């Protein structure tokens, strides 16, 4: 399609939007069907119950009960609604509306799930539960709409909400009913938490970001983040090779269709800039193992870019994106200082930004009046302007990639780097070392557990805690790391050994690579050349 034709089509679209703001792109209204439409949620609820008999769901009693509980809630609501409407002699109907911002977004999210799941199988094993949530979401949305008005707008709306929630947070099987609660709250927030914007009553929060933000707060406040797969989700994205490039390419699709380049681009550029500035000051990376963590990179493409809950003007989008970058940057430190998992940074920032949209909208005219901005402003059609923004973003990401700041190895991936930085007393380095060792210990690296136990026994870089030390030594010992067993017997000293091959397979992953099949000589070479492990260099020399 030529640029001129695209522009004409875009202009037509714009005109249509301006003239009939609520007009769907494709729409048909069914004749009033009385209450027959209620058959749809009834059938979907039945399908939800049938799903609960699949082996994946039957494998966990609490999970099965969660699905049945969700079905009972929906069914009760449906029956009450039916009785009420019959009593009032009221009718309800469907209206179909297929919005590109729903189905394009959903397809992009699906592409992320597919690629990520290919490299981290729990995602594929989660498909049944994703389907259950989608069914729940549709029925919930229908019942909510018909409880408040005559027409339910049927489309792909629930898809991006469910996908977006599940790209960032899943509750574990034992607690899965909270996932349904999270979905329900997302829809309730969309329905009830509204304000007037540009003369229209619109929802304030991005529905998925609203429930994600709310639940994140509660999980942090109650110290129950272990009920979710949040940490695993945040850290396993990088198991997929070239994930930054993949997300970047998918992001271009969203940017092209919904003109959100300024939001994502500004967020990424600000975050990258702040991160680089921090590194230049301190000599250590701000984020543990990347300039922009992969999950944040995903968030700034797919979570913060909901056009309905972000500013409409170009300058507003720029400010909005920039604030997201600043927000994530600040929350990362704040959460770390509070001792909370830092992966909530990207989730907590979005509802706050949604709340600031009207403020940004009112600030923009003031900014526009400033002379510098007037000089900088380009009077171009929005589509062409978006293309220019995209070009800038492509150049920026390309530069990031060339500098190895995207999918390349990051200094923060290397444990010896943090050990050295800790010895040199660089800011946060010792905390990061503890954090990294705790993460590897959680992955069953016995060496990391033993090192961690040593820090807590010796109280050198962290407060001394004999019980915690024994806990880490026990774990390492059960993983057959002999120095740790000896450390359990002799509580006066601390014995260490070099990482074993099995440990190296975990310690050298650089965030993602699967090294389980790597030959040992190659493993030691990698440890020596890329991570500066001295003992590994000795082994390389001795074998060559």
């Amino acid at each position, binding site marked *: 399609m030529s640029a001129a034709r695209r522009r004409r089509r875009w202009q037509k679209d714009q005109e249509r939007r301006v003239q009939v703001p609520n007009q769907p792109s494709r729409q048909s209204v069914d004749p009033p069907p009385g209450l027959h439409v209620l058959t749809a949620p009834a059938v979907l609820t039945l399908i939800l119950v049938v799903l609960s008999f699949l082996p994946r769901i039957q494998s966990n009693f609490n999970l099965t009960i969660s699905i049945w509980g969700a079905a009972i809630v929906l069914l009760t609501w449906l029956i009450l609604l039916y009785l009420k409407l019959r009593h009032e002699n009221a009718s309800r109907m469907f209206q179909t509306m297929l919005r590109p911002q729903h189905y394009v977004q959903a397809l992009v999210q699906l592409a992320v799930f597919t690629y990520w799941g290919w490299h981290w199988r729990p995602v594929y094993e989660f498909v049944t539960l994703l389907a259950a949530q989608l069914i729940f979401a549709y029925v919930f949305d229908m019942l909510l709409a018909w409880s408040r008005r005559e027409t339910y707008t049927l489309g792909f709306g629930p898809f991006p909400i469910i996908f977006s929630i599940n790209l960032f947070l899943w509750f574990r099987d034992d607690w899965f009913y909270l996932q349904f609660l999270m979905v329900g*709250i997302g829809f309730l927030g969309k329905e009830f938490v509204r*304000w007037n914007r540009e003369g229209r009553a619109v929802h304030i929060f991005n529905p998925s970001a609203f429930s994600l933000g709310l639940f994140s707060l509660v999980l942090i406040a109650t110290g129950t983040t272990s009920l979710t797969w949040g940490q695993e989700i945040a850290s396993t994205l990088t198991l997929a090779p070239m994930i930054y490039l993949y997300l970047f390419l998918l992001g271009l699709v969203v940017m092209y269709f919904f003109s959100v380049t300024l939001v994502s681009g500004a967020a990424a550029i600000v975050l990258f800039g702040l991160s680089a500035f921090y590194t230049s000051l301190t000599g250590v990376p701000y984020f543990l193992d990347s300039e922009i963590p992969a999950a944040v990179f995903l968030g700034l493409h797919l979570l913060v870019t909901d056009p309905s809950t972000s500013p409409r003007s170009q300058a507003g989008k720029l400010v909005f994106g920039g604030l997201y970058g600043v927000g994530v940057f600040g929350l990362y430190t704040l959460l770390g200082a509070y001792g909370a998992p830092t992966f909530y940074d990207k989730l907590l920032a979005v509802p706050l930004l949604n709340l600031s949209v009207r403020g940004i909208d009112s600030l923009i005219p003031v900014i526009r009046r400033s002379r510098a901005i007037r000089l900088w402003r380009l009077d171009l059609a929005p589509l062409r302007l978006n293309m220019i923004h995209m070009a800038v973003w492509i150049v920026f990401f390309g530069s990031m990639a060339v500098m190895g700041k995207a999918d390349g190895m990051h200094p923060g991936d290397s444990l010896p780097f943090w050990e050295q930085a800790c010895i040199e007393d660089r800011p946060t380095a010792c905390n990061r070392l503890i954090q990294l060792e705790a993460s590897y210990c959680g992955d069953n690296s016995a060496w990391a557990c033993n090192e961690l136990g040593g820090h807590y026994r010796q109280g050198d870089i962290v407060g001394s805690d004999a019980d915690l030390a*024994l806990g880490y030594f026990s774990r390492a010992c*059960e993983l057959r790391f002999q120095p740790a067993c000896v450390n359990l017997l002799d509580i006066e000293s601390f014995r260490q050994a070099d990482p074993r091959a099995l440990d190296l397979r975990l310690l050298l992953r650089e965030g993602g690579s699967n090294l389980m099949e790597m030959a040992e000589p190659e493993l030691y070479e990698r440890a020596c050349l890329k991570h500066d492990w001295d003992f590994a260099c000795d082994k390389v020399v001795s074998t060559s």
Partner: protein
Amino acid sequence: MIRKATVPLAALGLVTAVWVALSNAGSLPQSPLISNDTVNGNPEEVPGFLAEAWQLPDDPLLGFVEIAAGSFLMGSDAVIDPMAFDIERWSSTNAQAVLELPTYYIGRFEVTVAQMRSFVQATGYPIDGQALGGAPGHPATFISWPDALAYSRWLDEILRTSPDTPEVLSTLLEDGGQVTLPTEAEWEKAARGSDGRIYPWGSEPRSDRATYQARGTTAVGSHQCPECPFGLSDMAGNVWEWTRSPYQPYPYDPIDDFEDLENESLWVMRGGSFTDPAHFVRGANRGGADPGARRAFIGFRIAISPS
């Protein structure tokens, strides 16, 4: 202007309430290991054991038996004991060796399920649920090597600090004794005495003296053993017992126990179990297990060893 701005607050309150309710109900997620939440209740009465004294045996030394200082014969000579395994041979030149040990104390019985419950109740130590599932007077099983050490550390601490600790034990601990697992030498001397006998009661297997080739464990002390050198129970059979010695070839030398840190960990267990044939429950037989192993046939007994 935000319409119905109270909705997010209400939702937050709702979600918090659910969590608080769940937390109070004690139903926060459990790992496969359980904590003391699941073992609350009144102390169990096990005949011959003191519920008020951490379920330790009802005798003046709370079940500890003195093994006087002196020498004993360690290892097996295949000429005398044709069932002996190669790993029991002392060296290429000598089948056995005489070892001198200072005085130490060892538990008359294997540590019981009731004792482990008492420990978990007191400390909240996360333990495999199966370890606490057996009959209270039976040996505790599904215990890893670190679990066994954790129990002995706890007992060491309470015996040191409790005013109810018998004076002899208090003195022992003050003089440098430590509640821990026995070394394999300590274990072997306690089982075989100083005369190098094959089984604790003599040279022939006797099913009325020990639980072996059986369907399950028996309550500790079920078998009387008047012939056993120190009157200890279940030094043959019932459950394998962890020791604090790494599994390495003889000659035995406690000095080198902490030297080999590069190889994967394996710890000695002794005594054989209810699942084993007679020749496995001989006093000199040596088993080795992964320290993380939690099995239905592995338990432990404790000792007070001089440091």
